[in-house]
């Protein structure tokens, strides 16, 4: 009897958006606690843990992604307003922007160009399919914007989401070593490069090192989201990946 009750409850839950939404929030709060407990180690970034937990759950319960997304879409929807909200940290940095606009503009354009062309070029060289190349192109940009760009150019937004997070983790881990090798000591330079290559995850790492490095990383993240959205279709058409 209990078994059939459970089964009918499961049938109800698996068709209701409530389950997808609730497990998303639960998985994230577990993942977030683990991350804080591990002193914000980028390897335990909450997105990775939460995604792993949820995929395990979907596979174990044989739930389809579309059924899960019925509920999770309420969280997903907030990406749009969150992208608009990035205007606020950008505005808070506007004093720095005005003072350093020329070096920042030069670094921004070269950083975006390098990020996009090196990703697409290397993927092409290694024989990746066109759709994978397109999904990789916006990998250094903050996730909501990267997904929007990916969709626009014909990539796979959900693949892009994962590639962006992995890029952020890589940048957060290797960043400080790269700067030490290059003997760069200026926190504003380190921060800007971190935000350019590794968006929000790099920015979180930069704030652990210094306030200045974090602020410049946040600035680079916001500027590169903007510049990449504007430049990427054009860059890809120059190298002939997009017509």
């Amino acid at each position, binding site marked *: 009897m209990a078994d059939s009750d459970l089964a009918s409850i499961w049938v109800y839950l698996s068709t209701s958006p409530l389950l997808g939404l609730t497990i998303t929030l639960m998985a994230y709060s577990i993942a977030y606690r683990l991350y804080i407990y591990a002193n914000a180690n980028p390897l335990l970034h909450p997105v990775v843990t939460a995604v792993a937990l949820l995929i395990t759950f979907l596979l174990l319960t044989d739930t389809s992604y579309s059924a899960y997304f019925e509920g999770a879409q309420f969280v997903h929807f907030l990406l749009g307003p969150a992208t608009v909200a990035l205007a606020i940290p950008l*505005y808070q940095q506007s004093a720095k922007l005005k003072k350093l606009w020329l070096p920042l503009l030069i670094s921004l354009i070269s950083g975006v160009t390098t990020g996009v062309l090196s990703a697409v070029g290397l993927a092409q060289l290694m024989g990746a399919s066109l759709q994978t190349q397109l999904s990789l192109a916006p990998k250094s940009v903050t996730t909501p914007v990267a997904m929007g760009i990916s969709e626009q150019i014909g990539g796979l937004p959900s693949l892009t989401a994962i590639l962006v997070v992995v890029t952020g983790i890589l940048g957060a881990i290797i960043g400080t070593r790269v700067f030490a090798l290059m003997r760069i000591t200026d926190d504003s330079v380190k921060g800007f490069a971190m935000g350019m290559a590794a968006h929000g995850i790099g920015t979180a790492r930069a704030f652990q090192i210094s306030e200045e490095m974090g602020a410049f990383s946040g600035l680079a993240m916001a500027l590169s989201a903007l510049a990449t959205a504007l430049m990427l279709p054009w860059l890809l058409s120059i190298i002939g990946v997009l017509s």
Partner: protein
Amino acid sequence: MNFLNGITILLIYQLAGEVSALLLHIPVPGPVLGMIMLFLTLLLRGNSIASVDHTSSALLSHLSLLFVPAGVGMITHFDRIISEWMPITVALVLSTMITLMVTAAIMQWSNHLLAKEVKKDG
């Protein structure tokens, strides 16, 4: 009420961004155009909007949560990831390293080049 005002303003800017991207055929995601419009509004106003600040910091403090549903979508791309793991890994690792190095090198160089001017500006 503060939160409600803030989210309403963000949604209005997003809507304006989406509509202008469609009308003007700009290949930029609508929310990015919305972000540009809000940034310009703040610059013109000369100060921030309290309710928007409040809602934004709530949204941005757990920005990572918002990519989780899309990230789970990876489940539909397992085959692609398995068959193309090599080009994907090489592109991610090398491109991230190159981007870090080039951006840092160019910023350091342009700072040096423009150091005098920046000093003059204070």
